[in-house]
């Protein structure tokens, strides 16, 4: 690795282009052997969901994701890391979150990507509200205990 890896973090309403985000990490260099991408999408929940409304805490959302990304850079030999999280109304099939990790070898890229998603889900201040196809405003999505457990398991191990 040469030079400090500065994570690219963006919190925005607009969609992202996965190919363009991969290119952001790989263009102009030949030392990368692995790029892992994770895209989180909005499900239609069996046809009942019209859209998700994603609320966030501006400023803190950026800070928390940047903190988690910086921790990933400390733990694994990454050449680059990108995390983009959208807010606002997102229809089923639409993109919600993107994590891209690049490294010389795949093990670090896979592990760092999973770490980022596990921590992002429990640390980044975002909340999802359901809008139903029947026109009613549904419930706030409840946090899952297994998300906390998924994040906790990283505390016990080093990379």
């Amino acid at each position, binding site marked *: 690795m040469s030079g400090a890896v500065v994570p690219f973090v963006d919190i925005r309403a607009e969609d992202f282009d996965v190919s363009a985000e991969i290119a952001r990490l790989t263009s102009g260099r030949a030392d990368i052997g692995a790029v892992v991408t994770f895209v989180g999408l909005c499900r239609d929940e069996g046809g009942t969901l019209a859209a998700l409304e994603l609320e966030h805490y501006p*400023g803190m959302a950026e800070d928390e994701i940047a903190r988690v990304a910086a921790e990933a850079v400390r733990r694994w030999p990454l050449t680059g890391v990108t995390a983009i999280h959208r807010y606002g109304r997102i229809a089923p099939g639409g993109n919600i979150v993107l994590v891209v990790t690049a490294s010389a070898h795949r093990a670090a890229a896979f592990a760092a990507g999973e770490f980022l998603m596990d921590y992002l889900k429990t640390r*980044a201040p975002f909340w999802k509200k359901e809008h139903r196809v029947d026109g009613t405003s549904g419930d706030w999505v409840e946090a899952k205990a297994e998300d906390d457990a998924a994040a906790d398991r990283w505390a016990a191990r080093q990379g």
Partner: protein
Amino acid sequence: MTKLVYFAWVRERIGKPEEELALPAGVLTVADLARWLAGRGEEYAYAFENPDIVRAAIDKKHVKPDTPVAGAREIAFFPPMTGG
């Protein structure tokens, strides 16, 4: 005066996204503040009916219930996060 901000169902239950309040002298910690807020009216009582669930941040950093509120510029209350 301290700026309080609320998100998701905490915001909906209280009925406003933010407010500026003078915290009384007895409010020393985040848990004290949640208890004091819960006594300000039924909308607040509803938001904090299960205080163990509500999370907090001071100046945009996660904090625990026993964290002191002295010197805080902005205190946020919100449900467990569901991003990603």
